[in-house]
């Protein structure tokens, strides 16, 4: 399992270390805003299992989604790119992608540590990536459903077996 997973390189997330945190404040990060919501919008995190995310995307496609969007920000950009590439690699050429980059402006709260100070804010920018993965399969032509009544022979067979088999 370890060998299969792609290695991740990327910017380490900036932590609340001592250097940029003087003693008068505690930095509290807010949940970043989401550009869109819905089933086909997937937000990549750095904690979620890679395989689970991959499976989630594949299940979306197999359940009939035409396109999905992967949104990733900061540290998770590499993960998102890896995920998209893996999806396309596994799809044997049926999937394609388009990438947009953007910058997200974030606002951190600086919580005071002494009574005399008031709460202040800190502006921050972070890079974000929006990957659209879509199905470009030529064979995916909308086929009208077959007429409901099957041939009598087939019907007899299915009755004999007791359970109708779904047609491939």
């Amino acid at each position, binding site marked *: 399992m370890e060998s299969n997973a792609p290695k991740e390189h990327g910017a380490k997330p900036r*932590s609340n270390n001592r250097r940029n945190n003087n003693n008068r404040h505690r930095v*509290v*990060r*807010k*949940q970043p*805003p*989401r550009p869109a*919501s819905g089933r086909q919008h997937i937000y990549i*995190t750095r*904690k979620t299992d890679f395989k689970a995310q991959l499976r989630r995307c594949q299940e979306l496609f197999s359940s009939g989604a035409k396109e999905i969007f992967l949104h990733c920000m900061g540290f998770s950009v590499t993960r998102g790119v890896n995920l998209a590439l893996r999806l396309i690699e596994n799809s044997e050429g049926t999937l394609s992608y388009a990438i947009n980059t953007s910058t997200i*402006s974030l*606002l951190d*709260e600086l*919580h*005071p*540590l*002494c*009574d*005399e*100070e*008031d*709460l202040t*804010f800190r502006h921050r920018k972070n890079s974000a990536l929006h990957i659209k993965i879509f199905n470009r399969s030529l064979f995916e032509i909308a086929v009208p459903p077959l007429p409901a009544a099957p041939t009598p022979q087939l019907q007899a067979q299915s009755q004999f077996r007791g359970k109708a088999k779904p047609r491939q």
Partner: protein
Amino acid sequence: MASQKLEYDATLGGKVTLPTHVTTYHYAAGALQEIRSLIEEATHSSQRTSKLIFQTLPKHMRRRAMSHHPKRLPRKYRQAHKSQMGKSGNHPVNTKRPSRKYRRRPKNLLNEYVRRQRKHIWLETHIWHAKRFHMVDRWGHRLPLASCDKTYRACYRASAQHCLLQDISFYWCLELRGSLEMLRQGFARLTSPDCGLGITAKTFVTGRREGSVELFEDSQYPHRALQKARFLWRPENDGQTERALWLWLHPSAAQTTLEELLKVFQLKSCKQQTLPLEEHMQVDEPLEAGEPKKLNTEQESLDKKTSKEGQDQKLAKKQNTEKPLRFWTLTKAFERYPAYVNSDNTVNLLVLRKEFNRFRLTGPRAQSILAASLRPHQANPPELQHQSEYVQAALQLNSPSELLSNMVMGVQVADPRLQRPKKRTKAEPAETQARSPEDLLVNQPKTLPDSPLWLLQERQRLSKNILSTERYDKLRQQHAIVPGASCAFEAKMQAVPLLLIQRPGSQDASYKRLGYGCGWDVIAPAGYGMLLWLTLTMWGARPGGLRELDSVAREAGSEMHLPDTVAGVQEANAVADERRARYFRLPPNKRTNYRKLAVVSPFSAPWKQLVRDWHDASSTGPFYVLRHRQQLEAIADSLRRCSPLPKPLPQAALIQIQLRLLARGHVKTNALICLPSTTDYRNRWRQIKRNDQAPIHVEPPQPDLNESVRKELRRGHKLMLKRLRGRRLREKRRLQETATKRVHIRPANTAGLVRSHLLEMCRLWLPNDSSETRDSVRRQCSREVFGYVSSAGFSFTEATVCAVGYVTPGGLQKLLQDVPQSTNRNQTRQPLMCLLRDPDSRDYRWASFQVNLDVSTQCA
């Protein structure tokens, strides 16, 4: 009357002569005797008389079978008779339970509800909950514990992705008024700056944000913690020096905290006051109008029903006629809100119980549910326009945690009944956002936290003018032509002021995903609880109970009540009793033998003994939970760097840690946190290499020396009972030989014997009390114990078993000393680990942990 007359007397049966006059002193002596006997009778009759009620009745009022049927007694004696009969064991004829039709008549039903509320306070949503939830008696209330459906996981999902709704109106609200300086000085004695921001921190005083403080008994920090309290300042009015503050107290420790506040601010109850007569005009001002009051002057007690003006006039008249330096006592028969003031009337305290409804919404969808159910009132004055616009924009965001943490928003909304969907519907999130979250964070209108809820008159007006559901339905029947269409009268229904308080949820991204447990607290005026509750549930909020308060706190990696607070101690005792009772309900072959498992305290965590055993000097002081932020940070820092802990160690302290199991296994509450030995560290690498999932160490089973003693005791006891029975049987047979009638066997009367045997057996089953022997907690098993888990379970957010526990600093120090130094410098340093063992198991498993820095600020 001068001549003697002969009169007929039936009782004497003949003619008697009566005297024409009676001597006064003879008569007085007789009357005195009579009065004395009457007084005697009145004072002592209840103890002295051995008669039953129906026996004391005069002959002509007695009826046949009176003792059997209470209806044959005069009505005023029935109650006493019933209780007498009940005490003696033979109950009078049980009157049939009245028919359901009778019981369900509104008047009777209401009477019944009032009767049942005498014992426990009901929330406004009680009846709704009682139909759907398991109810428990807690803290003087009858509260919903958990839904009757299986909703444990559903409630987690709601708190993480949708919206969980809980009624926490059982919290007490105290209103404190006074100058900022006085309040600051008072609270300085009850809190400590080490625990975080004080109550008068600049960020809270404006009323923009809700804060929380740890309260301790008067200057006892760090010992004797009371509880964590949330507080909210009333926004400043220009030019007013008197400020108001709401404290929200948990009911378990609210009474203790209230007494402490009274002591610190030197407050006296307003229920009974002795006041000089001349000042009565000033005194009446702070008292609320419209309350029933009873005035007792020294000279006379005035009638309750006389109006206040009448009293004033009377008193004024008296003042003119009598000397000015006279005192009178003001006694209020009933206080709706118990009020307290200090001697010079600069600080007052008001206990506002049952005055507000506080609903807790947890989860990101709380946004859309609130947006759907709260519509700003149309007739809002223009100065409130900014407020309602801001609230609407804020509720369009994806998650409450994108807003300012602990922000307070006031809003005046239309009646929540008008906002209900026809069927239970999921509220959909808004498509577009009117304002960006950054804009909302920085540009808040000044008037945002203002609310008329702070005014007593306003609250009274609200509860008086509320349109009852019955009246509303009648009006709808009359006016609504098309079903479901809005009516003209609905626009005239009064606006409901609400306070929305944001809860930020998780703020530590390295431990828990950002914003888990975020949501809103909604404060609604009394009377609107059920109306708002139904609207929120109709928009898809999932109702939860007390169980969910604990489970959400556990998922967030914190605890509702720390073990040194009043509530924590109470809860631990109650849980220990319950577990003990359950243990002895089991048959002996299903009981875990804790002696064999080497667990000294299976039902509760022995914090006191733990601290004693790890203390360098042998002193048994009280323990406390370390809340000093700088100390915690220093400890966490040295844990990260594997360097020795900063000196001096707080010896009597417990440090809260968040644990997670690394691989398999399960822990429950009260699990042992142990120090790994060097062999464990060695074996760990071996296990990793071989992909071995077995526990790292298995406690060797200890011999149970009491086993044979117990068996002997049980056999002896059974034999004893048998022998006694044989004796009684022989006695019966002997009597039967001579008797003509059938003789029954004598009752056994062995209850005392059986009970003492049971107590002895319980003592033999459980390990020795850990307070008796030195070092019994620390060295109870083959690995040294340096902490206990206080709440544990499978965490859905982390997909592993997580726990919250407390360890001693001495133990941490030893753990740091024993950790093997990695030879390879480039290798990333492993996080510190400890061993966990369930009290019901012999397996030790690895767990990683981290120190919780936000013990005092985290609002569970």
